[in-house]
């Protein structure tokens, strides 16, 4: 089985920057592994996630996600790959605000239509999947027809999980998704996220500067320990 993430000799430099933001000789995440990646602000966490998602392309090195080298794909193929296999959750504002919850989830489905050779769900199955996800996340079905901007922040983040998981991604990337929540809600949210990820044995890379959450994860990694460029400006 392939690793969820395999990085070799990665170097990434923002255009015009004197020094690279990322310089990672080697890093891997196994299938289904849950990784807590921590580091201070500005240490390149978000940049690394963008590279993993195929939004940014490294200047050097190999990035393999689920066995596929992102560097060998076209930009369009990377976008399709991201939609299909990666569930990406932001700190906040995870939904298109003027679309309803149902439309947001449908949009994720539209962009990340699953690989038909792996899973060919019907519209009904998708409906069922959506409802099951909402139920698991403790969201009532009435929310489906509500505009995303009319939800509370806590509700939005839970819908974001549903949106990120609807295509049964094998890798979930979460960029401080709980930092907008208060501390009680934070633990609940994390528990829900991990529970949902476990259903299809998805790998999770969870990034935060708050080490208090680390105990929920089997692997804890300081970005500085893998990123040779960390600590630089």
């Amino acid at each position, binding site marked *: 089985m392939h690793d969820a993430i395999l990085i070799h000799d990665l170097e990434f430099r923002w255009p015009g920057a004197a020094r690279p933001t990322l310089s990672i000789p080697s890093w891997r995440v196994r299938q289904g592994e849950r990784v807590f990646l921590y580091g201070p602000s500005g240490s390149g966490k978000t940049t690394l996630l963008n590279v993993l998602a195929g939004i940014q392309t490294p200047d050097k090195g190999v990035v393999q996600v689920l066995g596929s080298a992102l560097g060998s794909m076209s930009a369009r193929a990377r976008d399709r790959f991201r939609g299909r296999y990666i569930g990406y959750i932001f700190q906040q504002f995870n939904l298109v*605000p003027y679309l309803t919850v149902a439309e947001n989830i449908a949009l994720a489905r539209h962009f990340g239509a699953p690989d038909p050779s792996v899973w060919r769900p019907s519209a009904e199955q998708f409906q069922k999947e959506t409802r099951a996800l909402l139920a698991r996340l403790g969201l009532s079905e009435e929310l489906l027809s509500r505009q995303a901007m009319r939800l509370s922040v806590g509700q939005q983040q839970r819908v974001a999980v549903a949106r990120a998981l609807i295509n049964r991604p094998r890798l979930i990337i979460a960029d401080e998704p709980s930092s907008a929540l208060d501390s009680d809600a934070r633990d609940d949210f994390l528990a829900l996220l991990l529970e949902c990820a476990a259903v299809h044995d998805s790998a999770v890379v969870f990034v935060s500067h708050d080490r208090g959450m680390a105990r929920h994860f089997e692997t804890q990694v300081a970005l500085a320990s893998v990123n040779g460029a960390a600590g630089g400006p």
Partner: protein
Amino acid sequence: MLLKVALASLLNRRLIVALTVLLIAISTLVLLGVEHLRQEARNSFNKTVSGTDLIVGARTGQINLLLYSVFHIGNASNNISWQSYEQISARPGIAWTVPISLGDSHRGYRVVGTSEAFFTRFLYGNQQALSFEQGQAFSTLHEAVVGAELASALGYTEGQQIILSHGLGNVSFSNHEDQPFTIVGVLAPTGTPVDRSVLVSLESLEAIHANWPGSGALGASAPQPAPALTPQSITAFLVGLESRLATFAVQRQINEYRQEPLLAILPGVALSELWTMTGALEQVLTLIALMVLLSSLLGMSIMLLSTLAQRQREIAVMRAMGAHASFVFLLVEIEALLIAAVGTVLGVASLFLALNVGADWLSARYGLFLELNVFNGATLRYAGLIVGCAVLLAMLPAIAAYRRSLAGALAGR
């Protein structure tokens, strides 16, 4: 899916979108309105006289003669003598003549003194003759035929009596009250100034003016008891030739007529001279209309561009979901397309409405008979142009959105 997202996005910004749609609707209205009026003014004028080879009147500008004799715009500066009329009518090569005598009115509508030949010789549109909705042509004194529009505006039918007034204008204090006219015929609509005219015989006009203090008292010492009802003068006359080939020869002969300075014009030539005169103005109007359109479309582009900053987050979300940057490009373009399409449709609809409301006023005031149906090929072409330009100008914000979404990192903050 793209369309659904675009619609939801526009609805979400409904106020600014509505204003932009209004902007485009107004500029569509201006552009199409100018073009339609221009086209219809020409059509309306061009279809008024057909089958008449020459119009003869007192010497003046040819446009002036055309406007006052047929279109009832402005007034004749001079009349021509009955004698000249009779002499020219008798010339070889001339098939028919129809005299026209203007100067009186009925409740603001022009009274046209003419002969019965008018009803057979005056052709309009595509060589159509006048037809009667009720009754028939006048045959004796104090009989009148009224145009369709006048009849419906004043509620006149066959058999009613009307009083003519001396001079023009809505309110005249000198009415020919002693000699009422009986309506013997109502014409079918023609879309020409005839619709707004009262037609009577020259003899009738002579009869009411014979006893008229203004003319009679000064000329003779007492009103003539039974005046010979031959007019002294007429305003103009229409001429039909036996052979159209002789048109220019006859025109020259009339222009060189010794006894009186006369002018003979070819209606088509006079009209094209008129269009040459108005052409420059029309082009300026069209140019202004196009500028209004361009600025409204630029306004739309600015609106789309300025909202991009606020949309950075939703674009990041779509990118995270797996959208390619081209989706964002298309989203902006489709939004522009929808705004422009709705704006254009609204503009055309309001033009249609405005024409229907303003048609009476335009025909009453300027003698313009407009085609009220604006849904023709030209409108379609202009609508296409507007939407096409909108899509083209929306490239600006669309490309900006495309580039930002390609370069922008997924930082959901």
